[in-house]
C-alpha cells in the first residue's frame, strides 16, 4: 500500500520524504485547496523546489485542487490545474465536476484522483466519475465501516485510498455546511473549517472559553486541556445535558487495521494533517513507514507495536485515538 503524506509547507514535505513517504500531497497558496490556512501551502517557487526534492527521492507528488469554485473565482481553479500540469504533478486531487472536466479536456494524461471532498461513498458514484473524467483513484470519506469499504472495493471501478491517521471528520466530507452556518466559511467554498479568524480564546470567570464567531464552542476548567474549537468537537447542551454531542476531540488511527486494509485491496493510505508541524509529519510518517514495512516483511506476524501507538497518541488531538467509522461500535 502506498503511503500518502501531508505537506503544508516545504519543511513538512522534506520531513515526509525523508521519513519514508511514497507520495506527498500539497496545495497552492489560495482557496483552491481544502487547507487554505494562513502561512500554509506553496507558491510557484516553493512548488518547483518541492517537485525537485520529491523527484530526486522518487516520491510522487499529488496536488490538491479540491474545493468548489464559485463563478467569480473560476479562473483560479483553471490556473491551478494548468500549473499542476506544468510542474509535472503525478496526479491532481479534485472534487468539483467542472474542474475535473476542464482537467480531462486539457490534460488527458494528467491522472485525476477524486478528493474526499467529492464525497463518493458507493460504487455507482465512482462509476459516474470514472465514466466522465476517467478518475484513477478515489479518496473515501471517513464514514464507511470496514465491511462497507470491503464491499465498495469489490465493486469499485477505480483504486481506493483511505484515511489512516489524523484529524477525524465526523460528517461525510463534501456534504458538511456546519462551518459556514456559524462562520460564513466552509470547506467546500473556502477550503477552511472553523477558521482561525473566527476563533476567540478568553478567560471568563475562572474558565477558559473558546468561541467561533461569538458562539460558545467549549468551556474548560483549571485541569482540562483546551482544544482548538472545531465546531463538531465542542460541548453542547442537548436534552438538558452538556456533552460532546457530535464528537470528542480525537484522532483517527487505523494502524491496527493494516492487514485488513491490505486484504481488501486498498491501494493507498492517507495521513491527514497539512496544517500540522513538520515534527508531526516526521513522527507520523516514520511510524507508518515502519508499520507498512513490517507488514510487507512478514504479513502473518504483523501486530501494531506499543511504541508506535504511543508515538501516535502523543501527536493526536486530545491525545486520544479511535478506529472511527471503521469499527462498528463507534457508529
Amino acid at each position: 500500500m502506498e503511503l500518502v503524506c501531508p505537506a503544508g509547507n516545504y519543511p513538512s514535505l522534506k520531513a515526509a520524504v525523508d521519513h519514508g513517504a511514497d507520495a506527498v500531497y500539497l496545495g497552492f497558496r489560495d482557496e483552491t485547496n481544502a487547507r487554505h490556512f494562513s502561512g500554509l501551502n506553496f507558491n510557484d517557487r516553493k512548488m518547483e523546489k518541492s517537485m525537485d526534492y520529491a523527484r530526486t527521492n522518487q516520491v510522487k507528488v499529488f496536488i490538491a485542487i479540491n474545493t468548489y469554485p464559485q463563478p467569480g473565482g473560476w479562473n483560479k481553479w483553471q490556473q491551478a490545474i494548468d500549473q499542476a500540469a506544468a510542474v509535472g504533478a503525478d496526479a491532481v486531487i479534485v472534487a468539483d465536476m467542472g474542474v475535473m472536466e476542464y482537467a480531462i479536456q486539457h490534460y488527458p494524461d494528467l491522472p485525476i484522483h477524486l478528493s474526499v471532498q467529492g464525497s463518493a461513498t458507493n460504487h455507482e458514484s465512482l462509476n459516474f466519475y470514472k465514466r466522465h473524467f476517467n478518475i484513477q483513484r478515489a479518496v473515501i470519506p471517513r464514514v464507511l465501516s470496514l465491511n462497507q469499504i470491503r464491499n465498495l472495493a469489490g465493486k469499485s471501478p477505480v483504486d481506493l485510498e483511505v484515511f489512516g491517521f489524523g484529524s477525524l471528520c465526523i460528517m461525510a466530507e463534501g456534504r458538511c455546511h456546519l462551518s459556514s452556518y456559524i462562520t460564513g466559511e466552509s470547506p467546500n467554498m473556502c477550503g477552511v473549517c472553523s477558521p482561525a479568524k473566527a476563533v476567540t480564546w478568553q478567560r471568563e470567570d475562572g474558565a477558559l472559553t473558546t468561541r467561533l464567531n461569538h458562539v460558545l464552542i467549549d468551556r474548560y476548567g483549571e485541569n482540562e486541556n483546551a482544544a482548538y474549537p472545531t465546531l463538531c468537537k465542542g460541548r453542547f447542551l442537548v436534552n438538558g445535558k452538556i456533552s460532546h454531542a457530535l464528537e470528542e476531540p480525537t484522532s483517527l488511527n487505523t494502524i491496527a487495521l493494516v492487514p485488513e486494509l491490505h486484504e481488501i485491496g486498498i491501494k493507498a493510505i492517507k495521513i491527514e494533517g497539512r496544517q500540522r508541524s513538520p515534527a508531526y509529519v516526521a513522527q507520523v510518517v516514520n511510524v507508518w513507514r515502519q508499520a507498512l514495512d513490517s507488514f510487507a516483511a512478514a504479513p502473518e506476524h504483523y501486530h501494531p507495536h506499543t511504541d508506535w501507538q504511543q508515538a501516535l497518541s502523543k501527536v493526536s488531538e486530545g491525545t486520544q485515538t479511535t478506529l472511527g467509522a471503521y469499527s462498528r461500535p463507534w457508529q
Partner: protein
Amino acid sequence: MDKQRQAAHSIKLALGPIQYFWSREMIMDFYRDMSKTPIDIIYLGETVCAKRRQLSFGDWFDLASKLTACGKQVVLSTLTLVEAESELSAMKKICHNGHFLVEANDMAAVEILSREQIPFVAGPFINIYNGHSLELLARQGMVRWVMPVELSKATLTQIMHATSAPVRQQVETEVFSYGRMPLAFSARCFTARAYGLPKDNCQFICARHDEGLLMKSQEDQTVFNINGIQTQSGEIYNLLQQTPAMKKIGVDIMRLSPQARGMEEVIQQFHLARTSMREIAPDPAGCNGYWFQRAGMENCYVKDKRL
C-alpha cells in the same frame, strides 16, 4: 409560455421531503392536509436514514399517485448518504419507478438516472457551485437543481449569468427558502448518541422528536438541530421577504421544508407573497445569512436595517 415569462408571472412553491421520522399516520394526515394547500410540487420519500421505513416503496408510490390526482407535481426523493448495498437497491427502485420525476440526492442516483437517460432533479447535496457543473449535469439530463443551501443570492445570480440560454430553458432553479436547513450527514446517529444508544440498536428514538432535537451552546444559544444522522440548522431559514428578489433573478421554485406544526400557515404566507404586489415586512425571527453571503445562522434583517 416560455420559462422566463412564466417565472415573472408566478414563482412555484415546492414542499421538500419530510426530514424527520414521523409515524405512518402522521405522514398520511400531513399530506392529506397539504393536498388542499396552494403548493405546486411535493417531494416524497426518506432522504435521511435508511432504517426509517414507516412507508414502503409501494406506499410512497400510491401516495404519489393520489397527490398527482390532486393536481400536484410529485417528485420521488432518494436517500442522501448511500453507503450499503441495500441502500443502493432501494435507491435504484426509486430511479426505475417509471412514472414520477426523481430527485437525486447522492451521485449514485445521478449516475443511474443519467446512464439510463432518465430526467432528474439534483437535490441540495449534489455539489453544484458553478455554471460549469450545472451545464455538465444538464447535458446528463438534469431538468432542475436545488441550490446548495450555503450559496448566496449573489453567487446564484453569477451562476445563472454563466449558464447558456438553452440550459436556462431546460433547467429549473429551486432555492431552499423555508425550514431547518440540512447542513451535514454522518455515519453516526446523534439522536441515538444523545440517549446513550448504539446506532445498531437505536430503538427509533428519533421518532420522539418530530421536529428534531435542539443542540444549544452552554449559554443556551440555539446552534444546531439533531435529526438522526443529519445535522440541521438550529434556526429556521426564512426567505419569505425575498420572494420578489427571487422572481427578479429568475428563480423558478421556492422550497419549503416540512415542519410538524404550522405548515399550512407558512404555505399561505408564501402563496400571498408570490401573488401580491405588496411589500413584505422583514421577519426578525429565524435566520437568512446564507442568502446575503454571511454566516448562515445570522439574521441580516436584524443586523443590517438597510436590507
